[in-house]
């Protein structure tokens, strides 16, 4: 593989690596990066030994709290966060699936009230591996394969 830098470096900010390539735009949506005014660069379909293909996002001057970044754990469970200060990695973190998922995922149950009225969805995490989410309203389980981002 070509060792050249495929996504340009940032001075200060956050690098989110090891995102499944097909989930890049879901991650952008969940983290609301589409409305972020800072410089953002991203690459997708990059070669990865472990994942085959991956995506990476670099956000300048933006630092994420655990709670905020853990929202992406559902769709990018192996994502790694590098906090960059003055071009140096000062912290490495992995994402963790939170105990409760709020307003990220749609309930898979077509008869659930959340699919019929404008409601903030809420799920309790029933299992982390494989991911199973129990809807706080209809009480049905949305499995990992059924996860659709709102």
């Amino acid at each position: 593989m070509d060792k050249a830098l495929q996504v340009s470096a940032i001075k200060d900010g956050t690098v989110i690596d090891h995102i499944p390539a097909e989930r890049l735009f879901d991650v952008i949506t969940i983290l609301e990066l589409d409305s972020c005014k800072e410089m953002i660069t991203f690459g997708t379909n990059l070669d990865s030994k472990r994942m085959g293909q991956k995506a990476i996002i670099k956000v300048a001057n933006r630092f994420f709290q655990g709670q905020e970044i853990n929202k992406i754990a559902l769709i990018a469970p192996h994502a790694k966060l590098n906090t960059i200060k003055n071009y140096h990695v000062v912290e490495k973190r992995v994402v963790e699936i939170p105990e409760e998922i709020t307003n990220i995922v749609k309930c898979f149950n077509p008869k659930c009230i959340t699919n019929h009225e404008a409601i903030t969805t809420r799920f309790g995490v029933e299992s982390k591996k494989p991911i199973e989410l129990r809807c706080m309203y209809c009480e049905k389980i949305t499995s990992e394969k059924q996860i659709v981002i709102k």
Partner: protein
Amino acid sequence: MMLAFFMLLTEKINRMHPKNLISITDFSKDDYLKIMELAAEFEKEPNQDLLKGKVVASLFFEPSTRTRLSFETAITRLGGRIIGFTDSSSSSVTKGETLHDTIRMVSNYADMIVMRHPLEGSARYASQISGVPVINAGDGANQHPTQTLLDMYSITKTQGRLDNINIFLVGDLKYGRTVHSLLQALSVFDNPIFNFVAPPELAMPIEYKRFLDSKGIRYFEHTEFNDIISEADIIYMTRVQKERFNDPIEYEKVKNIYILKNSMLENTKPTMKILHPLPRINEIHTDVDSNPKAYYFTQALNGLYTREAIISHIMGLK
């Protein structure tokens, strides 16, 4: 463990609002026992003016006979007044009004809301919007907690206990909300034994079996009735509900499989009782009706006392 977490979370939501009954797991073992005690009191004296001066909204967004009539009788016997509708065609839903707006409006008028709605989770949502307590009288295929409490009262009355009950759940165990709630409720009592009798297409969902596994509760699965029903304290029959099937052919294939007949009851315990949430189609042969073990019509009557007990408990009247 995770189901326990979920129960904690729903409890947390519930505490943030007036006390409601949305899911059977909203109530603790103490609540169950309190309802049993109050229901027995109301059975002795059904007419008590505890709701005098109060208005209860009875919002039935889909048709119901037993549940609606027993709730409305319970409210009347408690001295309360009823407002509401018996199906959504006579409400502003036909004009496109959201559930949110209907509940906001009604909770300004009434002291309590009793609600049945075809969408799952609608009662939980209503309880978050409403400023007054909400009782779930059935939200689609999800929960019907007042049915479970009247089932528990029927078990208490006929067996004298809720501990050590060997119960056979028969029929539609996949879609049948009553069996799921009853399973959850009985699991807080000592040493229940569950026997599931259902065709593979309508078997008890894996999540409920995992729940029992996590609590170390014994259960057995059967695909047909056999001699083992001689061990039963309760046989709980359910209707294979046509409206829960997307494919009518699937319904036709299974509807006649599990029919209880009088001849099958010969070797059962003398104290055994047959329960059914009703309406019955053909899953209990009419020759069972005259057998003293048939309890389903009395069970429906118990619904009145149990619902008086639930309303009083939630409103803090007793």
